[in-house]
């Protein structure tokens, strides 16, 4: 059975996986691979190791790893082989193949042009923050944590000494 793992870096920001998870869902719909998982190097779940465990449990024998990276940099040339080495040790029955990074392709040019065609004015420029907050997983390291955009952790009340600083600056 052939499985596909989309490999990405991961992020502290809530909702940062929205694009990649949408790609994974569309790839599942296409059905080119009998199993499609996303695996992250840092911060975001599931980890690459967890993604491998999932496809192994589903009975995969061949695993194609497609890096969701614009270029073949450190994470693709160095981090990914390390992750695959560990995964290979844990699941010796699997055969791994690594695809090229996105790099250069007409698809990127088309994406750019279509994005430009749908460009909007200032009222929509921060819609991404609202979408990110909708996928909140409260984590003090998230840039939205405890801000007005974080739906689960209230904004911390200003402390008196903070107000004193503000007054001193004013």
């Amino acid at each position, binding site marked *: 059975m052939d499985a*596909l793992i*989309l490999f*990405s870096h991961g*992020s502290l*920001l809530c*909702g*940062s*996986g*929205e*694009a*990649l998870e*949408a*790609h994974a869902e*569309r*790839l599942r719909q296409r059905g*080119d*691979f009998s199993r499609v998982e996303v695996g992250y190097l840092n911060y975001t779940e599931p980890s690459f190791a967890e993604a491998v465990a999932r496809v192994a449990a589903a009975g995969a024998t*061949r695993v*194609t*790893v*497609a890096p*969701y*990276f*614009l*270029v073949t*940099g*450190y994470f693709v040339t160095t981090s990914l082989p390390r992750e695959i080495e560990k995964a290979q040790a844990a699941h010796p029955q699997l055969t791994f*193949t*690594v*695809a*090229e*990074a*996105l*790099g*250069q*392709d*007409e*698809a*990127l*040019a*088309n*994406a*750019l*042009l*279509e*994005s*430009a*065609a*749908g*460009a*909007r*004015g*200032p009222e*929509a*420029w*921060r819609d*991404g*923050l609202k979408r*990110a907050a909708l996928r909140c997983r409260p984590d003090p390291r998230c*840039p939205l944590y405890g801000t007005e955009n974080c739906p689960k952790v209230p904004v911390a009340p200003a402390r008196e000494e903070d107000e004193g600083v503000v007054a001193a600056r004013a």
Partner: protein
Amino acid sequence: MPDALLVMVHGSPTAGANDAMFAVVDALKARPEVAARFPVVEVGFMECNDPPIPEAIDRCVAQGATRVVAVPYFLHTGTHVCDDLPTLLEEAQTRHPGVAFALGDYIGLSPRLTDLLAARAAAAAASP
């Protein structure tokens, strides 16, 4: 009055890291319909590389653009896409009150990239 296309890129300290992006932008500029729609195309960087985004915007305006359409060349949303890039456009709006600014989705949201991932995966899976 001409529209400018501004490609907003993260930037990288690694030599050659932007080569593929520049090749994509060059391929875009070579399309006649794009040249007609966007007589001005500039690339601007958040970090590490020149020109910085504010300078790229000023270049668009210096070439006569009255509308600047900005597209984040980013795969993921994050603080840059959600907050930093809008801030740069707001600052540019203050510098250039007569210019209209628009911001598109970051390219990672495009289903075109799903097709590209599928193609990359298929090529690897077909390799011996």
